[in-house]
C-alpha cells in the first residue's frame, strides 16, 4: 500500500481507486509498525470511499483494527449526500471517560486507598452480568435515554455543575427513546449505574506531572500529588444492541452488495432510517452519560464515608469517544455543518468553540486519555489546530496491540496484581481472567500516543496522572 510521509508524525494514503478523499494517519514510525500488522490502514481506505466524506479519512495515534471503520478513526460527511454509519460509532455507543478532581493529596489518602476501593466495589456493580438490585421501570429507562445525565442530577445523583462540565452538557437533545428497540431496553434495564467489564475501569489516581500550569488550574488541578478519580465505561448492553439492531435494519433496507466490508453498512443522513439511527444513538449516548453520572455519585458517597468529606470533588470533564455528531467545521474555506463520526477518538475542541463550557472556553476543552491497567493516564487540552487536522479530534487511549487470547496465554491475573502491588497500586477485580486480558503489555504505550498528539497539535499535554487504586470490571 502506498504510504506517503508528510512529516515526522503524519502519513497519507493518497486518493486512489474508489477513494473519494485521501486517508491521513497521525502516528510515529514506531507505532506505525504495529498498525501495519493489522487491517487498520485498509479500513481507513475503505472509509475514504464512503459517500459524502469530507477532507480525509483520519486515523489517530492509538488506532487499531476495528469493524468497518478502524478504532481511532474520524470521518465527517456532508449533509446532502453523506451517510451515517453505526460502524463509524462502534458497538459501545458513548463509551467515554469522566474525571473528578478531589482536594485530597496522595499523603492523606495513601492508607485509605484499599478501603476506598473496597467500598466503591460494593457501591458500583462491576463485572459481567452484575446489575443493580433495584431495577428501573421501562418508563424511567425511557426518561433516562431522553434526558441523560440531566435525569440523574434531577434524581439526586450529582450537581448541575457536573452537567456543565460534561460533553453535550450530559444530554443529546435529539435523542428519541422511541427509536430504540424493546430488546435494547431489555438489555439495558438491569445495567444502569454499573461499570461493566472488558477494558472498563475506575481508578483513584494522583497527579504526577503538570505540563501546563495555567490550563491545569482552569481544569481545577492545582499541583502534583492531587487525587483524581477516573471512570471509564459506556452504554452497556443497551448501546451494543442499538448498534446491532440498526446494522441489521440498514442491511435489510439498503443491501450489502456494494460494500467493501459489510460492517461499513450505512444510511444516507437525510433518509428516514439514517435519522432514526441518529436519534437512537443519541438515546444510547444519554444512557451512558446517566450511567457515568450515577457512578460518580456513588464514588462521592464513598469518599464522604471513608474520608469524612467529599467537599471539592468537582467534575473536571466527561468525554465520549464513540459517537456521531453534527458540528460546524471549515471545509474549503467555508463553515459547513457535517456529521462527524468519532470511533475510538476524543473530541478535542480548542479555545472559543461554543460547544465547550464557558469555564474552559479560554483554554480549550479537557481531553481525557486513559492509559491501560496500571499505567499513566493523561489530560490534554483541545486545540484550534485539531480542527484543521482532524475535525477537532485526537486519540482515546492506549489502543491494543495484542489479542486478549494471547494476553491470557502470556499473563496471569494473580501475578499482575502482585506486580502492581509492588509498585504501590491496589487492584480489585471481579475476574483474574479479565485482569490478564487487560495486561498493560497488551496495549500500545500511552506515553507515546499522547506525545504524538501533543507534537502534531491534536491535543496539548496538561497533566499526567498515575494510578493508586484500580477497580476493574
Amino acid at each position: 500500500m502506498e504510504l506517503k510521509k508528510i512529516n515526522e508524525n503524519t502519513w497519507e494514503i493518497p486518493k486512489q481507486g474508489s477513494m473519494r478523499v485521501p486517508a491521513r494517519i497521525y502516528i510515529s514510525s514506531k507505532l506505525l509498525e504495529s498498525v501495519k500488522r493489522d487491517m487498520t490502514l485498509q479500513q481507513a481506505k475503505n472509509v475514504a470511499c464512503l459517500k459524502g466524506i469530507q477532507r480525509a479519512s483520519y486515523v489517530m495515534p492509538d488506532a487499531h483494527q476495528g469493524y468497518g471503520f478502524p478504532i481511532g478513526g474520524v470521518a465527517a460527511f456532508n449533509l446532502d449526500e453523506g451517510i451515517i454509519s453505526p460502524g463509524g460509532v462502534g458497538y459501545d455507543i458513548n463509551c467515554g471517560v469522566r474525571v473528578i478532581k478531589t482536594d485530597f493529596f496522595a499523603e492523606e489518602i495513601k492508607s485509605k486507598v484499599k478501603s476506598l476501593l473496597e467500598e466503591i466495589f460494593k457501591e458500583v456493580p462491576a463485572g459481567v452480568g452484575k446489575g443493580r438490585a433495584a431495577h428501573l421501570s421501562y418508563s424511567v429507562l425511557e426518561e433516562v435515554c431522553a434526558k441523560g445525565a440531566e435525569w440523574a442530577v434531577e434524581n439526586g445523583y450529582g450537581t448541575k455543575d457536573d452537567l456543565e462540565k460534561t460533553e453535550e452538557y450530559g444530554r443529546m437533545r435529539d435523542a428519541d427513546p422511541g427509536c430504540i428497540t424493546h430488546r435494547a431496553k431489555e438489555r439495558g434495564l438491569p445495567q444502569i449505574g454499573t461499570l461493566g467489564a472488558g477494558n472498563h475501569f475506575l481508578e483513584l489516581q494522583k497527579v504526577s506531572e503538570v505540563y501546563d500550569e495555567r490550563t491545569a488550574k482552569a481544569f481545577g488541578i492545582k499541583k502534583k500529588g492531587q487525587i483524581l478519580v477516573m471512570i471509564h465505561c459506556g452504554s452497556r448492553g443497551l448501546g451494543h444492541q442499538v448498534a446491532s439492531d440498526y446494522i441489521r435494519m440498514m442491511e435489510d433496507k439498503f443491501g450489502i452488495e456494494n460494500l467493501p466490508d459489510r460492517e461499513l453498512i450505512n444510511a444516507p443522513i437525510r433518509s428516514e432510517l439514517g435519522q432514526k439511527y441518529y436519534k437512537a444513538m443519541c438515546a444510547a449516548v444519554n444512557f451512558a452519560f446517566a450511567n457515568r453520572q450515577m457512578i460518580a455519585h456513588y464514588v462521592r458517597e464513598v469518599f464522604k464515608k471513608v474520608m469524612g468529606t467529599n467537599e471539592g470533588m468537582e467534575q473536571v470533564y466527561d468525554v465520549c469517544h464513540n459517537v456521531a455528531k453534527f458540528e460546524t467545521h471549515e471545509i474549503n474555506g467555508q463553515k459547513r455543518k457535517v456529521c462527524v463520526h468519532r470511533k475510538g477518538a476524543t473530541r478535542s475542541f480548542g479555545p472559543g468553540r461554543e460547544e465547550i463550557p464557558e469555564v474552559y472556553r479560554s483554554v480549550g476543552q479537557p481531553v481525557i486519555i486513559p492509559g491501560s491497567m496500571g499505567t499513566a493516564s493523561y489530560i490534554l487540552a483541545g486545540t484550534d489546530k485539531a480542527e484543521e487536522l482532524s475535525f477537532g479530534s485526537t486519540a482515546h487511549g492506549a489502543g491494543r496491540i495484542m489479542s486478549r487470547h494471547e494476553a491470557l496465554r502470556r499473563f496471569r491475573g494473580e501475578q499482575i496484581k502482585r506486580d502492581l502491588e509492588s509498585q504501590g497500586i491496589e487492584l480489585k477485580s471481579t475476574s483474574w481472567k479479565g485482569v490478564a486480558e487487560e495486561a498493560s503489555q497488551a496495549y500500545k504505550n500511552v506515553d507515546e500516543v499522547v506525545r504524538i498528539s501533543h507534537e502534531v497539535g491534536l491535543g496539548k499535554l496538561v497533566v499526567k496522572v498515575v494510578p493508586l487504586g484500580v477497580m476493574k470490571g
Partner: protein
Amino acid sequence: MEKYRFLQHTADAKFQAFGDTLEEAFINAALAVCSLMWDIDKIEIRVTQDVIVKAKDMKQLLVNCLEEILYLFDAKGFLLASVKDLNIEQAEGNYRLSACFQGDYFLEKYKVYGGIKAITYNEMKIEKNNHFLVQVVVDV
C-alpha cells in the same frame, strides 16, 4: 473433530467452529461464544429457551443466532450450556433458524469471567469443504 479454535486478533476474539453439518458448526460457534464468558461444563441444565431467528442471508442468520446468547444473558440472566434441535431452513432468500437453548439462570454459584459486546461480520466465513467451518470475530 475439534469443536472450535481461537485465532490471533489484535483487539478481540476470533474463532473458527467446525461441524459435519452446518447445524453442528452453528452449535459449536454458540459454544465458542459462551466459552468466552463462562465455563459451559459447570452450568447445570435446568432452564430451556426456545429460540427462533430469521435473516436475509446465512451470515446474518449466524449473527442473529449468536446475538441471542448475549440478549438472553443481559436481559434474562440466562447462561447457555448446550444447544439442542438446531434447525436451519431456507426458502426464497429467507433464512430461519430454530433451536432449543439449554442452561441455567445466573446464580451465585456460577462464575462469569468475560463479557461480549457484539457479534460482528468482521472476517466472517461460512464454508463447506470436507466439513463445515464458520469463522466469527466478536467485539469484547
